[in-house]
């Protein structure tokens, strides 16, 4: 049975309040989830007053500013800052997205920043995605051609077949969709989740792949696939505008018609 409330050691307490020291008039309150593994205390939400006059437009700019100027111990993943790497995926204003492409001007009131939902927290805004990566590995995300490696020419793909991968190959595996899915929250150990299923569909749908039947068979499982109830939180949150719900629907349809 799913546990709807947080376990005892995960209850969030009210943390420190960092008052603005720059005497700026354009202030914004940012509430950030904090947890330090070395203290043994419960997680807390710290509130930072940030001077918006000298801050970039994205949420990631705010976080970097806090880390640089207010509290250097604030921990989060980030890399490209262009919405390509998927490192800075987090829950901003109640919806999972990439901090680097989310404008803070789009959000009214105080800004709430949490790690991706229902993950074991490593530190502050970093969640442990080990399970998801294992699941990703389990769908064998590589081309299986059944060829001998002796071929002298590349495997060709028509433009039309290539277009079938549009909307699926763009996935950057930021895990926004999977961690937005209530079904994945309650069954994350067994259900593959939208991100991995979208990837599974990407390989099933690849004209160059010769393992389609085997792939379909592998994913056709009460728990692995059919825990998707089309809640559509995944599509709602995808920062790349992809549609995992549609990918899962397509797999289900393939299985029903094959």
């Amino acid at each position: 049975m799913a546990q709807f409330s947080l376990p005892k050691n995960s209850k969030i307490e009210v943390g420190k309040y960092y008052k603005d020291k720059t005497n700026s008039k354009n202030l914004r309150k940012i509430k950030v989830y904090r947890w330090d593994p070395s203290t043994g205390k419960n997680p807390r939400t710290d509130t930072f007053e940030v001077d918006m006059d000298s801050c970039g437009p994205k949420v990631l700019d705010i976080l970097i500013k806090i880390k640089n100027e207010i509290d250097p111990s604030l921990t989060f993943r980030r890399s490209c800052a262009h919405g390509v790497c998927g490192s800075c995926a987090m829950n901003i204003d109640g919806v999972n997205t990439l901090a680097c492409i989310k404008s803070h001007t789009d959000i009214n009131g105080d800004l709430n920043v949490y790690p991706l939902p229902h993950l074991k927290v490593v530190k502050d805004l970093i969640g442990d995605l080990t399970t998801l990566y294992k699941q990703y590995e389990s769908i064998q995300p590589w081309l299986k051609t059944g060829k001998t490696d002796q071929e002298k020419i590349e495997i060709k793909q028509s433009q039309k077949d290539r277009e079938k991968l549009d909307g699926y190959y763009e996935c950057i595996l930021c895990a926004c969709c999977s961690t937005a899915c209530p079904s994945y929250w309650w069954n994350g150990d067994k259900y593959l989740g939208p991100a991995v299923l979208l990837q599974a569909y990407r390989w099933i749908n690849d004209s160059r792949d010769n393992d389609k039947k085997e792939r379909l068979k592998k994913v056709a499982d009460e728990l692995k696939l059919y825990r998707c109830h089309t809640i559509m939180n995944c599509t709602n949150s995808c920062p790349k505008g992809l549609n995992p719900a549609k990918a899962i629907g397509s797999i289900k349809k393939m299985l029903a018609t094959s």
Partner: protein
Amino acid sequence: MQNKNNPLSPHLQIYKWQISSLLSISHRIVGVVNILAITLICFWTISLLFGKDNYLIVQIFLNSIFGKFLTISLCWTFSFHILNEIRHLSWDAGFGFDLKIAKFTGVLTLFGSFLLTIIFYFLGRNFF
């Protein structure tokens, strides 16, 4: 990584409700309510076998204010479930996954369920 004692990041507590997720959970709850309602209606029908009085007791109850509220509520739960099920059927057939369309059909379902409730109620009252 060994992280038995690491806290779990908040989920339901912080995640913003979307129209799609709201309708999804309502669909489930309403489904359970409908099953219960159908069972009770079946028992009510069986009670006919044991004489007219049993039937009348329920009828008197259903004509009270609470009974009427219950009937109208059930009209809504059935209407909502039917309409949302059509939505799910179209998804199973592979249509309507587009985010804008899914949101639109969601709103349509919600408004449609209220409309259907009114129609059901008046049909039951022999209004037409």
